[in-house]
């Protein structure tokens, strides 16, 4: 359903770049995704996972190569048209909106202007937001990081795209909500056999759900295969290379 051919994304010196060198963030990457799969993308920080998903959603445009979705060339298609074709993306760092109610954002996402509050609440409880009345809250600075992140995921659930990309959905989410979230992903995957889910994650539990695991490193596919092939090779080592001392605890994985 999704095919990337020789995709590169280079940030030119001086433009958006933080220094005056060219940066190859994605390098000649080719990838085919079959419909109905739950695929987990993992790999070291800065490897290019978020960039790759932004290229698929159209938030960034590749500097070389082509992307097609269900046979349509979408390489240079605007974001909103891709959204209407059936691609959805839950941001690693979600946006905030002054004055927008959670219920409104969910209604926009679902495309149903008059969706009932009960229906909106269904998506919130799917991400473990049931305690307080979140529907009337503003999607602004007043929400905690974890709340905002879960609302972001709820918007993708409400949208229910054919290809759903979640960028580190577990980040900042408490243990109880995480339980709920994994159950939701599992349901989503089983309930809609023609829908495809791409989850960028460093979490063992999420990798355990995967049909396939793709390891992205230095802007390329470092490894790819079934969960049973790849998962054991991601050795969760206790003795990290001291040179990698800057990686987060959740990254205590040797790729």
């Amino acid at each position, binding site marked *: 359903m999704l095919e990337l051919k020789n995709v590169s994304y280079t940030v030119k010196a001086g433009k958006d770049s933080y220094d005056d060198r060219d940066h190859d963030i994605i390098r000649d990457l080719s990838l085919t995704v079959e419909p109905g799969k739950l695929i987990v993308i993992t790999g070291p920080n800065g490897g290019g996972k978020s960039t790759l998903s932004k290229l698929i*959603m159209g*938030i960034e445009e590749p500097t070389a190569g082509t992307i097609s979705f269900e046979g349509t060339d979408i390489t240079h298609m605007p974001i*909103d048209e891709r*959204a209407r074709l059936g691609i*959805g993306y839950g*941001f690693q760092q979600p*946006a*905030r*909106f002054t*004055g927008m109610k959670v219920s409104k954002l969910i209604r926009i996402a679902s495309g149903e202007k008059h969706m009932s509050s009960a229906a909106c609440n269904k998506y919130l409880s799917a991400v473990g937001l049931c305690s307080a009345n979140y529907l009337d809250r503003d999607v602004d600075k007043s929400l905690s990081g974890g709340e905002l992140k879960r609302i972001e995921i709820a918007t993708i659930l409400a949208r229910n795209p054919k290809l759903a990309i979640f960028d580190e959905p577990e980040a900042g989410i408490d243990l109880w909500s995480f339980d709920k979230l994994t159950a939701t992903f599992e349901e989503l995957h089983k309930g809609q056999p023609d829908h495809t889910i791409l989850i960028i994650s460093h979490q063992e539990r999420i990798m355990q759900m995967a049909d396939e695991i793709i390891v992205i490193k230095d802007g390329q596919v470092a490894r790819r295969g079934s969960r049973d092939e790849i998962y054991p090779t991601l050795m969760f080592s206790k003795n990290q290379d001291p040179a990698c001392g800057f990686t987060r605890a959740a990254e205590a994985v040797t790729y």
Partner: protein
Amino acid sequence: MADTATIPAPAQGATGSEVDLDAISREMLEVIADMHGDTPGAVNIRKNGCLACRTNSEHVTITSKTDNPGIDIHVDAGCKNEHVHIPVVVTEEGVHDVVYNDFFIGAGADVYIVAGCGIHNGGDKDAEHDGIHRFFLEPGSHVVYVEKHYGEGEGTGARILNPTTEVHLGEGSSMEMEMVQIKGVSSTIRKTTGTLEADAKLVITEKLMTHGEQHATSDLDFEMVGDGATVRVISRSVARGNSVQVFHPNVTGAAACRGHVQCDSIIMDNARVTSIPAIDAKSTEAQLVHEAAIGKIAGEAITKLMTLGLTEEEAEEQILEDFLS
């Protein structure tokens, strides 16, 4: 005379000439004062400088002033859930309407007041309405005040609204003011001032949108003189086209009180926004904070809405609508 039941007939003894309400006026009344169907409570409609209709209610008495154009509104002490609508419409070019309205809110009263002005100027001469509103809140009273300003019309004549609002909050009284300039007002100079006695509470929300060649200036000045008083000023604005906005909110604390000023503006196109929030403490016990931010629409917010299927233009409109909601 009004010709339908939706607009109340003038009360006995109403002064001023009575004017018919045409379709344009009715539409504007809906926009500025939410008036459609039966309007509950006391009503005073002013059109092109004259009284169009008036009704009093059991606890609210409206009388015309004898020295100046305008009205006195007396709300009885202790009454609950009273509604007062006093909208103004201007539908003729060349009108310069000045009106003085004084509100006397009795102790412990609880009242909802809707003002607002709509100008329809189809001509090439200016049309102007200057409302000077004063509020005197007796101890323990509570007022919700909503004021909407709106301009329309095909003519090149300016639509000018220069409101002056003065509030005096007695001990333990509270007021929520929502002042909105929807659109179409060519030029506005807004002045809002107030004093607060002990334990009085004021929340004022100002929302303004300018476009084209419009100008808007808003000066707000509140002083808290009693312990336990609180003032919260929330100002949100959107400036588009070549429009210019200047904000100057000031909160003074002369007692053990708390004040917070927050100004957020979205700037677009070739607009200009100047925001000069000020806080002024005259007591070591005054806690005053101000925040001001001006910026374009956040790119990531537009991007997010586009990933939900909205076009860039739709996303922008949605964000502006919510910002001013």
